[in-house]
């Protein structure tokens, strides 16, 4: 290419290829940001109506009717456990005390190497029983099925199986469950008193569409006061990392998922607490144990199945806080979690790439999937590449610094605006953090997030991409502090 061709005369003067590249990248990043921002604005406004409608409707619901009725649907609670010996007895007791009439609790011991099984056997007087079930989904072998000899625990069924991971354990649960609705739950989660009633109610409310899954809001329990497996006082996490995740969860659950639920385009039900239609879960093939994002993947596959079979369906979402979980409190653990989430997202998107802008999948193919592709999977990569490129261009003197800083302030101010809006919605709706001081602490956290937390999350996502390319499959150890013995605020 000669020098004449390498320079282009434009209305603005002489422009070389380097400047062309800078402009191209700037233009792309700007356009991408604007579309993303527009999506966020749409999500924020679109969620308001749905949240308001739910809260108004919910104020008329007398859950005690459901709690005592013999006509409520029977449910099977699936609780996978791996090396949970320290807390398994209390966790199972919490599950058995759940406020719901017709249920069975299936604890799935996924080949724990600790004394979980021994502890369960002693505490609940378990005896091995012959138990026939159909293997709808292939799994690792089941070693034995146990029931309690004490009639007090007649709802309990304990399955001891060979280690195969969480997805494999849940698939055993799907096979063995005797009820039509499955509730998958992390044993270390703390449920609200009426959480199960709220989670199941959407299955009773639809006549024209089949409800295939329901999920609710997961909240962060760090610094909350926990007594006998119940949250007795809600506090904003004292440490910065869990606190910023609280803000993240408010944004995601109160705005994002609510809007997607209204569009009937929700792709993710949290693995910590969600209910599924057993028949559809089986027909869709159950959990995929080859992905680390099995919760999202199952929802996408169930939706895909319904779309392909042209059966009207709905994935319902409850904006009430139903479940409390402990969030990572260190950058190390947080990094592992975000790395895994990234890999899970990519694996799911790759598995279901057929739906990408495919009109035969409706909202799922034309909106939900592309959104996840462009703004969940690509966003951290584009952000990372953009930042590196801007720094390089600035160092080479190719970047107009005034424009760079203007764009930076624009993006940062929008991010802060979105967080403040989420806090406003939280205050106007569920208002979990009653003290004024906590709300202002949350606002301050929103201000600090882009400088301390966000770059780390982006970096973890980039590492997730790299790890996926290296074919890393591990979950990454998730060390938890636990609720018991935690200092009180």
């Amino acid at each position, binding site marked *: 290419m000669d020098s004449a*061709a390498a320079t*282009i005369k*434009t*209305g*603005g003067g002489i*422009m070389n290829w380097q400047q*062309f590249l800078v*402009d*191209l990248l*700037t*233009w792309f990043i*700007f356009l991408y940001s604007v579309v993303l921002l527009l999506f966020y604005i749409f999500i924020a406004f679109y969620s308001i109506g749905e949240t308001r409608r739910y809260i*108004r*409707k919910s*104020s*008329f619901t*007398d859950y005690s*009717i*459901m709690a005592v*009725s013999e*006509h*409520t*649907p029977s449910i099977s609670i699936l609780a996978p456990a791996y090396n949970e010996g320290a807390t398994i007895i209390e966790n199972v007791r919490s599950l058995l005390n759940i406020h719901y009439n017709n249920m069975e609790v299936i604890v799935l011991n996924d080949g724990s190497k600790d004394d979980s099984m021994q502890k369960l056997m002693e505490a609940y007087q378990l005896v091995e*029983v*012959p*138990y*026939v079930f*159909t293997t709808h989904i292939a799994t690792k072998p089941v070693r034995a099925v146990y029931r309690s000899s004490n009639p007090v625990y007649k709802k309990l069924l304990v399955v001891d199986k060979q280690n195969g991971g969480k997805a494999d354990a849940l698939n055993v649960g799907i096979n063995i469950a005797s009820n039509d609705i499955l509730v998958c739950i992390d044993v270390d989660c703390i449920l609200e008193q009426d959480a199960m009633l709220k989670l199941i*109610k959407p*299955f*009773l*409310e*639809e*006549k*024209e569409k089949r409800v295939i899954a329901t999920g609710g809001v997961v909240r962060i329990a760090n610094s909350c006061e926990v007594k006998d497996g119940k949250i007795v006082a809600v506090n904003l996490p004292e440490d910065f990392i869990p606190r910023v995740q609280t803000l993240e969860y408010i944004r995601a659950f109160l705005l994002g998922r609510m809007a997607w639920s209204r569009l009937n385009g929700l792709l993710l039900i949290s693995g910590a607490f969600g209910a599924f239609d057993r*028949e559809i879960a089986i027909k869709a093939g159950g959990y995929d144990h080859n992905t680390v994002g099995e919760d999202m993947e199952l929802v996408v596959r169930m939706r895909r199945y319904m779309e392909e079979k042209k059966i009207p369906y709905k994935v319902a979402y409850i904006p009430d806080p139903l479940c409390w979980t402990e969030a990572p409190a260190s950058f190390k653990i947080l990094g592992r979690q975000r790395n895994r989430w990234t890999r899970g997202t990519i694996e799911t998107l790759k598995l279901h790439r057929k739906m990408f802008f495919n009109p035969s999948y409706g909202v799922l193919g034309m909106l939900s999937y592309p959104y996840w592709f462009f703004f969940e999977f690509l966003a951290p990569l584009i952000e990372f590449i953009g930042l590196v490129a801007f720094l390089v261009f600035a160092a080479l003197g190719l970047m*107009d610094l*005034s*424009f760079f*800083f*203007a*764009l930076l*302030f*624009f993006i940062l*101010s*929008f991010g*802060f*605006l979105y967080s*403040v*809006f989420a*806090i*406003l919605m939280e*205050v*106007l709706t569920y208002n979990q953090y009653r003290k*004024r001081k906590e*709300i202002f602490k949350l*606002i301050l956290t929103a201000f600090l997030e882009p400088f301390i937390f966000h770059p780390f999350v982006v970096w973890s996502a980039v590492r997730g991409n790299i790890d996926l390319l290296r074919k890393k499959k591990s979950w990454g150890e998730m060390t938890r502090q636990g609720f018991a013995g935690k200092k009180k605020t």
Partner: protein
Amino acid sequence: MQVVSLFNYVTFFLLDAVIDPVQLLAITLVFVCIIAGMLFFILLYLIRRTGRSMRRRSLREQYSNCISELAVCETNDELQSFLQQPETLTITALLQHDAFARRIIITELLKTVKNMSGNAAANVCWFYEQAGLQHDSLFRLQKGAWHVKARAIQELSGLRQNKYIAKIYRHTNNSNELVRNEARTAVIKLTGFEGLRFLDVATYPLTEWQQLCLLHELSLHSNRIFDGVQRWLQSPNSSVTEFALRLVEVYHLHACYPNVIDCLKHASKPVRKKAIAALKEIYTPSANEILVERFEYEDADVQILILQLLQEFATEAEQLFLLQQLTHQQQEVKVAAARTVYHTQPAAEQLIKQRVNADEYPWTVLLPQLKQEVAL
């Protein structure tokens, strides 16, 4: 080359013109102003909320003392003297001009009447009328948005305003689901089983949730009238048929047996499932033959329900049919059939072993399992 030129043209006119730094900073400033506005709103809202909650608490305390006194009045004279008490006069004067106070007292009256019965509850409803609060509810029933209407219906029915039943009844087929549900529940609350006549004209479906609420409300009434059930069992609205089947099941309506049998052939699967559940409660021996006849036309889940029903009622006549199901293609059906045989035949194990290979799965596990179940 053309592409590059076009790009530069676009860049010049858009990138340079539209997103120049000054404009971006101007938009940022707008964002900052919105943020400041929202922060100010949050602060004001929190202050206002604290004020309102304090006022609400104080009003509640004031009302709860008043309501306690009201509840214990036994004669008309006592009620009249209650109205003339200085505390009551202060409250009624406040209610004349304070909408917030009216909302609080209506909520308190509703809560109280829910936990009371007899004379005490009647006194509370009487006070609701004396204070003219029903006009407030009626106004909102007429003019309000869907949730306001629904709340008004809840208030009128909760505080036993039977004279407004016609106004409430009009909403039993309202296009809004919540208003419709509240109106349907309200007519049952006010008139008991008679209120079910809305089922004759119900065009919208009754959800499972609505059915649970209606059954709960009906359970609180003793004047059981089941005139329309046979008609509802033949309703073109399949959800009405489902609900009627639930009535048959809960109240053991044996007279409806022929209609329930007809429902076994209904096009809707949920109706057929509920018909089997109802049949369990109004069982007559002739049902077995019909169930066996229907079996082959059903999906596995309904077949299992039939087998579960036969677990309680199967006779010698059904044994051959049951033994045939031991070789059913679907394991769940096979297991249900074996369970039924075990529960209805003393020599079940021998019979099963004659039909199947007891050394193969699932029989190796199922036979001990069933033996254990029966022993329990």
